[in-house]
């Protein structure tokens, strides 16, 4: 089953020989092997015009303080909307942030955002990037004024929301339409799970899948490959980033971070909240031999996760079945 059903609608004008370009109907649908999403679009109905506006805003660097950075600069489609090769984000005026940009997909299933879960609603999640001095370094009022005076934005807001009024709510809701429609659920793993097209794991992948279920899925739980809890996986004795405790103020949350999804992990490196590991080999070696006994280390990792080299190859082979090339290459999501 195609989870993002693309219905082609051919609209013909009254004039027989003038054919308007076919428009793909943008929809959000839940892959059958997924759980129920958390965001329902009740107060933000998806429309083609709303999605198109959100996408344009997402890729427009003119929104940033020095007109150099768009959302898409740090969230790149070929990296599953993470930031390729950047340990930590790199914003306006060459400013270096402190955290690695997470990939953006399946956000409609998330109830909290950012590594520390500080943001609670997808609709308000773009605000931090817009205002952070180290990301886009601007404010919403400046953006509203810019958009009011920049064609074709007023017309696009009109099409999306029925009037040319531009306000923060409309900006955020349209960006949300774009982001929430980014669903990645067509990896080889998904096809195997859904028994589609006769897909099956090869023996290396299957061995990796068994190991994964035994050693990793208590945190990186299927089908989203995260249980959305905040834990410490032993990166440092004393974390330089306070993580979840920045939000809760609880000492027991110091140095804990949201379990990241592992979907598209082949493309989302570098890894961890600070992007310290450049390869999956380094990540697996960390679990095998690098776990530090930090005070809040998750009990499951107290003795590390011993992995010999063939087990590592098996897990890596499995992790690569989580790559969704259809998603990475879908031109609906690309800057046009």
């Amino acid at each position, binding site marked *: 089953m195609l989870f993002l059903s693309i219905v082609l609608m051919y609209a013909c004008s009254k004039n027989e020989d003038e054919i308007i370009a076919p428009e793909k109907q943008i929809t959000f649908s839940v892959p059958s092997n997924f759980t129920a999403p958390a965001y329902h679009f009740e107060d933000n109905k998806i429309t083609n015009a709303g999605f198109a506006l959100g996408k344009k805003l997402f890729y427009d660097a003119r929104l940033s303080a020095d007109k150099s950075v768009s959302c898409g600069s740090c969230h790149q489609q070929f990296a599953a909307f993470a930031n390729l090769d950047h340990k930590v984000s790199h914003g306006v005026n060459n400013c270096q942030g402190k955290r690695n940009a997470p990939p953006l997909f399946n956000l409609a299933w998330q109830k909290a955002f950012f590594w520390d879960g500080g943001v609670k609603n997808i609709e*308000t999640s773009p605000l931090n990037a817009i205002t952070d001095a180290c990301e886009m370094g601007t404010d919403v009022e400046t953006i509203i004024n810019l958009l009011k005076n920049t064609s074709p934005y007023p017309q696009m807001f009109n099409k999306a929301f029925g009037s040319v009024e531009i306000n923060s709510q409309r900006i955020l*809701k349209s960006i949300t339409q774009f982001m929430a429609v980014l669903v990645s659920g067509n990896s080889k793993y998904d096809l195997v799970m859904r028994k589609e097209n006769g897909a099956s794991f090869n023996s290396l992948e299957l061995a990796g899948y068994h190991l994964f279920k035994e050693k990793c899925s208590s945190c990186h739980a299927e089908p989203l490959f995260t249980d959305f809890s905040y834990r410490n996986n032993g990166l440092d004795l004393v974390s330089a980033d306070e993580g979840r405790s920045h939000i809760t103020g609880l000492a027991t949350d110091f140095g804990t971070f949201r379990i990241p999804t592992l979907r598209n992990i082949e493309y989302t490196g570098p890894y961890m909240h600070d992007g310290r590991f450049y390869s999956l080999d380094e990540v697996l070696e960390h679990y095998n031999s690098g776990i530090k006994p930090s005070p809040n280390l998750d009990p499951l990792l107290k003795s590390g996760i011993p992995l010999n080299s063939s087990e590592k190859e098996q897990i890596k082979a499995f992790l690569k079945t989580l790559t969704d090339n259809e998603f990475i290459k879908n031109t609906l999501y690309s800057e046009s």
Partner: protein
Amino acid sequence: MLATQIFIAFRMTINPFYLTQFHKMKLSQYFLAFLCPIILFTSCKKSDDEITADAKSSFTIEFEHQVNGVPLVLNNATYKNAKGEDFKISIFKYYVSNIKLTKADGTTYLLPESYFLIDESKNTSKIITLNNVPTGDYTKIEYTIGVDYARNFAGAQTGALDPVNGMFWTWNSGYIFVKLEGTSPQSTAANNALTFHIGGVVDPNNTIRNFSTEINAANPLRIRTDGKPNMHFIVNAAALFTGKTDISFSTLNFTMGGANSVIVADNYAKGLFRLDHIHN
């Protein structure tokens, strides 16, 4: 919900039109009618003929900003906190939300969608108009200083709750309920700054505080179709720094949520607002 049902029950008892509709009412409302005999009883006796049962009108609330009895003037005036330390204020703004009125008979009316941002630098924000309020004599007013739990985590909002108002934290979802910035020679922060951004809704650092005040029954808030009263509150900005805990700017000059914000919220919960008078 309960409040509106009580109100419907109240209207039923004094308006014959509702009685004809009584058989159509939902079972839950019958239940309610049984649960609230006292309210109904007292409502029945109320037959003040100037109050028409489903008439609505409006009233205004004026917030007059002071610091310990003298008018608040941004940037220039110098004030003293309870510890005798000098300070100046450059920003003073706060949310008032979920305004609820109570009549002498106990019936309440919660004003729907009542969210207001009062900002010392914007004169028009200091007088708020509340429309569509059922007429009657009200003897108590309650409201939240800040924003209720749910709206802190809701999607993109407009109006008073629009994030452009600079009262929304982007890194830790939720509103700044009360924002006071200024300077004090005692502040150890850079440029002697005072930065009090009070907010947060999760225990143990929940800073949602409710304010309520009784209104003198001899001069209640009389809302009439031809009478739109004005309530006048004195708002003492210095209340952030005194009350439960007297604050010294040498030790507390910066807070953006967390335990220190709770200290400030506990102070202003009692001392920030005082109902001065009502013009009926």
